């Protein structure tokens, strides 16, 4: 190679190296649209929803002539996989998401294509989360979860303790009293159990009259939070709740379903997704109970979204698919087959005729109606996930005696403050 040719080549190599080392910039605008009708849908499954989702996809393909490549990924890898694909310019056309914040700048305005079908159709609390700064419809809340207690009816009956009336929720004091009476009568290890989760504890916080956040504003009332944490700690100190469960879990999510299924706790605070699992696995009589009321009644919501990306080369078809999957008919079918709760206002109002455990799902649906609107805002806040995770650690420090409930409440508030505004 001649010396004259070597210099430009070296310069080119240097530029390429520097370019490769520099982090990428923001994505550009929309991509060109493809002629074909082939969609990719990145999806994670909670279990019972996969079959129903596949059936709905088959119906969509039949009706639209499109093909949908369902790409099922593990939930734990969802965010990393999507970010990697977005970075590589290879975003899927549609994705099922639990958090919108990390992708907000990349999401497609579905209202450009399906305004009539999608706008204003879904649970009101989700509106701030799914709406962009200019009113864009960035996602659709595709299913709703609701926290609430599940009780061992057999043990309640044996103890002669009255079952709670779904129409007239018990108070926290009544629930604890009932649970402890059942515990004594049946000799169970614990009276109450709650999943190791800041989301589940948010239910108790709400019933004590406060939530972590509202959008990007921290709303946690530390006095109310202190009262909730004090009661939570007392229940653990007295052995009414399994202290080890929270400490052994570290920072990981841990469900208490094994303790409930082993009939070692008569009242288990979890969520509606346990219904289809317990219908198969619980070898005793059980039912869903209404959430206990404190200052407020109702549970705490959660859920997933469906969204498309600005990178998608099938934007119109993606929006059409999302509209189809979240139509009243499709959502009703998904809810019936997977024991999910609807996000559509019409379905929440009318209810869903669940073929399995309809009474239990009815209790959860009633809890959706009772749940205060600010809990939806809290759950859909950008900082919710981080705050909920910090809550688990803060509560553990109370159980180990490293922090007082007041200090823990302040810690949670500080963490919410840090997490509230996306960086």
């Amino acid at each position, binding site marked *: 190679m001649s010396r004259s040719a070597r210099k430009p080549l070296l310069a080119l190599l240097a530029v390429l190296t520097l370019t490769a080392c520099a982090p990428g910039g*923001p994505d550009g605008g929309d991509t060109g649209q493809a002629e074909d009708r082939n969609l990719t849908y990145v999806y994670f499954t909670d279990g019972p929803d996969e079959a129903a989702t596949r059936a709905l996809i088959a119906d969509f393909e039949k009706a639209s002539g499109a093909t949908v490549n369902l790409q099922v990924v593990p939930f734990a890898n969802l965010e990393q996989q999507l970010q990697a694909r*977005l970075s590589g310019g290879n975003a899927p056309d549609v994705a099922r998401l639990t958090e919108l914040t*990390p992708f907000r700048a990349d999401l497609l305005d579905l209202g450009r294509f399906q305004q009539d079908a999608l706008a204003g159709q879904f649970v009101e609390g989700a509106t701030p989360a799914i709406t962009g700064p200019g009113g864009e419809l960035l996602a659709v809340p595709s299913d709703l979860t609701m926290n609430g207690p599940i009780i061992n009816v057999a043990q309640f009956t044996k103890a002669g303790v009255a079952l709670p009336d779904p129409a007239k929720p018990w108070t926290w004091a009544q629930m604890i009293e009932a649970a402890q009476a059942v515990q004594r009568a049946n000799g169970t*290890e614990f009276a109450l159990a709650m999943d190791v989760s800041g989301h589940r504890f948010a239910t108790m916080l709400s019933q004590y009259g406060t939530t972590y956040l509202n959008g990007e504003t921290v709303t946690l009332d530390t006095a109310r939070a202190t009262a909730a944490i004090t009661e939570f700690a007392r229940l653990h100190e007295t052995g009414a709740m399994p202290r080890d469960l929270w400490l052994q879990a*570290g920072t990981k999510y*841990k469900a208490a379903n094994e303790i409930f299924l082993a009939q070692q706790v008569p009242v288990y605070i979890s969520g509606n997704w346990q219904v289809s699992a317990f219908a198969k696995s619980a070898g005793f009589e059980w039912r869903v109970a209404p959430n206990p009321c404190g200052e407020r009644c109702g549970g705490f919501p959660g859920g997933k979204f469906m969204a498309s990306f600005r990178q998608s080369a099938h934007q119109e078809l993606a929006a059409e698919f999302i509209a189809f999957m979240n139509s009243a008919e499709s959502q009703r079918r998904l809810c019936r087959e997977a024991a999910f709760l609807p996000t559509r206002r019409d379905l929440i109002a009318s209810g869903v005729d669940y073929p399995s455990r309809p009474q239990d799902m009815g209790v959860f649906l009633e809890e959706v109606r009772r749940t205060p609107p600010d809990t939806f805002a809290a759950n859909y806040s950008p900082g919710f996930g*981080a705050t909920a*995770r910090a809550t688990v650690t803060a509560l*553990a420090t109370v159980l180990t005696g490293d922090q007082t409930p007041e200090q823990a409440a302040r810690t949670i508030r500080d963490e919410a403050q840090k997490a509230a505004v996306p960086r």
Partner: protein
Amino acid sequence: MNITLAPYLFVLPNMLIFGIFTIWPAINNVTISMYDSTNGRTFTYAGTGNYTELVNSADFWAAARATVIFASCFVVLCTAAAVGLALLLDARLRGRGVFRAIVFLPVLLSPVVVGLIWGWIFDRRNGLANTLLGADIPWLVDGRLAMAVVIFVGLWTHLGFYALIILAGLQGIDPNHHAAAMIDGASAWQRFRYVTLPLLRPTTLVVIILSMIAGFQAFDFIWTLTGGGPVGATTLMVQYIYQNAFQSPIRYGLAAAGSVILFCTLFGLTLLNVLNDRRHA
């Protein structure tokens, strides 16, 4: 073909792979550590901001302290136990091959499986450990006990590998050295102290360096065993980095800065070990 180019051509494919999958990401990681990003696509230049934030973070120092405790115990116990175990495996025992296989077996297990198995064993309520002991020991509930359990499980998992390395070193020692020492009237302890140990020095150094790296990078089995708890007692540096990189709120820059600090620490410690060994060689 020019004969002097041949060796380079042979190593070129390996060097390319090493460069693409190790060197380039490492360099890129240093760059990312000077930026702030929550999505891996939009980056804001932060200079040394991430490093400053780490140094001022109580969680970072807690993770660093836990890492030093874990790694120190892990290295010392691994090295000592590996030497002891290798001496046993080197002895002329019946069924020696079976013992060697048993000792090496945990190395073959997935760290995730290891964490889950020992998590069940050390569960306070239903765990095998408390059932066998007829005790109520809060293995994974008390911070100090949890750290001891994590060290033990780490040792159990890795010991077979290091014992095998030491065993290879033992078998590389010329038996004439021992024969000569015996003729000179050296006792078994003296032969071990003045013949075996000095000749094992290079192999032991390898074990020290490898166990140190493994100790500082421990994550997978701890994540499944304790999740870093209770109350962060077993949250080591890699978990801290993982949480910043992959758990909301995602902070790629902060995680990258943590990785750089971990790399520098490991590099420095390895260098010290090598230099120290050369000084004593």
